[in-house]
């Protein structure tokens, strides 16, 4: 009853308010990022392109992981296996690329991306076929991918050709333009932008928003959900490759960090966990925010573990404020 009433009230609301409601959160995240960036560049004695590089290096895998998680959440699911899929791609690339030529390494990377998308599609297919909640299936897949990663590489090791590492740690044109950032933007432009406003993108949102209505509208619900997980797998693969390129090694446990933080970045970036709401621009910024908070803390001389505590607390507080904001909106 109260929702119907809220609907009536919303109809008479003027457009600026509606715009603020739809995009306010994303804008807010970018403002937060800007504030943090401005503060950050005042801390080191001689802040320069090197710092920009290292921020991009730190944030790149998380940004991809956040994209992977966001796509799936928008489609109404959640992927707890993102982290361990990242580990798997990470160890696979680090184990086999180490003695490859640059060209072969790239081709192998491409192959891994296809494999990673296929892995995502496999998870999605399992969810659709079994009708088991996403959270259970992806939890199970978390075990499976992590186990496989451990089977492939028991302890951190491996590596990659120098020229491949340059993709993650180098720069384009000027030292101020980290190559990682450019690759991130490229991936966003190639894999997401063409979809967003086209029918596949609308289908993705519709399935997350109201599956029944989507089906009645003629959307292939199963197909779309599998597609979302495949796209998520692709971004997770990019995150895994980015992790090898930025860290230079493969680590079967490296992905753990991304399970929570990908979800946190997605939520912080304005993707609602109920599905159907948000985009990828916000979560990318949120990934940088999350990384930057930790960077700033460590620059300020805070112990690594304290930084983790503070970072976690901040994420919780931010999400709590978000929850409170939604409650306030629901009440009025």
């Amino acid at each position, binding site marked *: *009853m109260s929702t119907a009433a809220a*609907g009536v009230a919303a109809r008479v609301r003027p457009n600026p308010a509606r715009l603020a409601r739809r995009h306010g959160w994303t804008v807010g995240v970018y403002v937060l990022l800007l504030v943090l960036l401005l503060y950050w560049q005042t801390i080191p004695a001689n802040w320069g392109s090197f710092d920009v590089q290292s921020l991009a290096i730190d944030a790149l895998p998380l940004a991809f992981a956040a994209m992977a998680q966001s796509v799936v959440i928008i489609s109404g699911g959640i992927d707890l296996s993102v982290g361990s899929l990242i580990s798997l791609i990470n160890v696979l690339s680090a184990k086999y690329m180490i003695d490859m030529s640059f060209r072969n390494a790239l081709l192998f990377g491409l192959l891994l991306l296809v494999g990673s998308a296929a892995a995502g599609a496999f998870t999605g297919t399992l969810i659709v076929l079994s009708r088991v909640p996403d959270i259970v299936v992806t939890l199970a897949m978390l075990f499976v991918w992590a186990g496989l990663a451990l089977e492939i590489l028991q302890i951190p090791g491996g590596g990659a050709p120098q020229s491949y590492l340059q993709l993650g740690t180098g720069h384009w044109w000027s030292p101020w333009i980290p190559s990682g950032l450019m690759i991130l933007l490229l991936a966003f432009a190639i894999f997401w932008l063409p979809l967003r406003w086209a029918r596949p993108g609308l289908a993705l949102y519709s399935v997350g928003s*109201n599956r029944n*209505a989507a*089906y*009645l*509208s003629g959307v292939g619900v199963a197909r779309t959900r599998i597609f979302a997980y495949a796209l998520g797998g692709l971004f997770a693969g990019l995150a895994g490759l980015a992790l090898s390129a930025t860290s230079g090694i493969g680590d079967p446990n490296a992905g753990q960090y991304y399970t929570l933080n990908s979800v946190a970045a997605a939520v912080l970036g304005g993707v609602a966990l109920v599905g159907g*709401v948000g985009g990828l621009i916000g979560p990318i910024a949120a990934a940088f925010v999350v990384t930057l908070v930790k960077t700033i803390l460590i620059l300020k001389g805070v112990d690594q573990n304290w930084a983790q505590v503070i970072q976690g607390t901040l994420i919780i507080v931010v999400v709590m404020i978000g929850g409170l904001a939604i409650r306030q909106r629901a009440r009025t």
Partner: protein
Amino acid sequence: MSLLEARNVGKRYGPVVALESASLSVDAGEVHALLGANGAGKSTLVKILTGVIQRDGGTVELRGEPVRVSSPSRAARIGLAPVFQDPALVPDLTVAQNIRLTAVDVDAVRQRLREMDVDVDFTEQAGDVPLPLLRMIDLARAMARDPQLLLLDEITAALPSDLAERVFAVMEDWRRRGRSVLFITHRLAEVIAMCDRATVLRDGRDVGTLVPREIGERQIVEYMLGPEAATAEAHAAEVDETPLKGAAAAEAAATTLEVTDLRVGSLAGVSFSLRAGEILGVAALEGQGQNDLFAVLAGDRRAEGGEMSVTGKSLRPRHPYDAIRSGLVLVPADRLLALLPQRSVRENIAAPRYNRLGRWGPINPREERRRVASAIEALQIDTRAQRQVRRLSGGNQQKVTIARWLASGFQTLLCFDPTRGIDVGTKRQIYALLRRLADDGAAILFFSSELSEFPLVCDRVLTLFGGRITGELAGEGADEASLLRAMHGLVEEVAS
């Protein structure tokens, strides 16, 4: 020649038969009604015809050609366009995006809406558009595909009468152009006024095709319920006078709900009083403030101004709990808002008993069983599928939502459209029950989207328009014509 011919169509889910074997024939250029009590299989048949679910047996022919409707999009392609009670619009997409999602021309939909004189902002998110408007958009979208057959599944349920009129105009127009409409509704008056023929389903079978204009409401009901059941139901409603032990109402015969200048949302200052033993009706078009009124009284929303008091004690509920403590309890129209679908009938009925910390301790099973049993008996709930409430029929589910309050005790019952989407037999039982509760001393506030219910149920009727009370009628005098006038604010304010 018939446009659509369905023969012996059936559907079962495991052991549960949703549709036994139904046949239906719709001619070109006719408005055809599909009638039946709840659970008769109407919705199942429509879902099969529009590809939402797949039939297990039978044949479907379109203009003499057998067709396999494998999905909603396939149905749309061959000229079958449904509009369901829950509009098929995705809440987080804008109206325009929703239309693009279905690959329908946005301008064509806009044109249709203009013809119906419905004003819609296409950049609005569908989730922000009120339900009645969503249905109109859904209808316009279906028509923009220019289908041979429009299937309207309870589209007029809870639709304000002005919009319902426009739907009827569309149906009329469709018939004139030689197209057909399959129309599902619980409102028999609409059937008699609008439909050329009607097919009646009972227990998953078709029991006859008739011309509603000729045979009249009474006999249609008989068809729907089956001859024996119809008399039995009527009998039960008249004779069953078992006193309700469960209701705490009897002890509080003098209770009064007093509302003074209540303001919230679209409710712009409403005053009335409700006596014990009285059933007070609230009649209103969609969106005149009745939602807010019931939400505030039930404690689901906070008032912005005005006073409420129960037996002289001031009441300002901050949570439904506070209202319930004061004896104000809500029976919402949407049963999903009130039920625990996976739990048993017993747990559902007993649930409100444990709503406070003080009752979180051990349960007294004997006491619980006794109260639940007497509530079940009072409402004649069919408990064959009692392990999980979601397996009950809609009517039985609605009875459970009322039984909860019988078992936990109340003084004032707030019934918000309690018979929405319920079959005629159950409706009668609910009317009789409300009357008995009132006779036992309960006070009842009753809103319905079906005007014909007011004279049957109420002692007094208030009409609400633009957030204010525009009239007060005696129960017997509350016929549809005078109600409609008052609901549109056409009568000078009667002293209240």
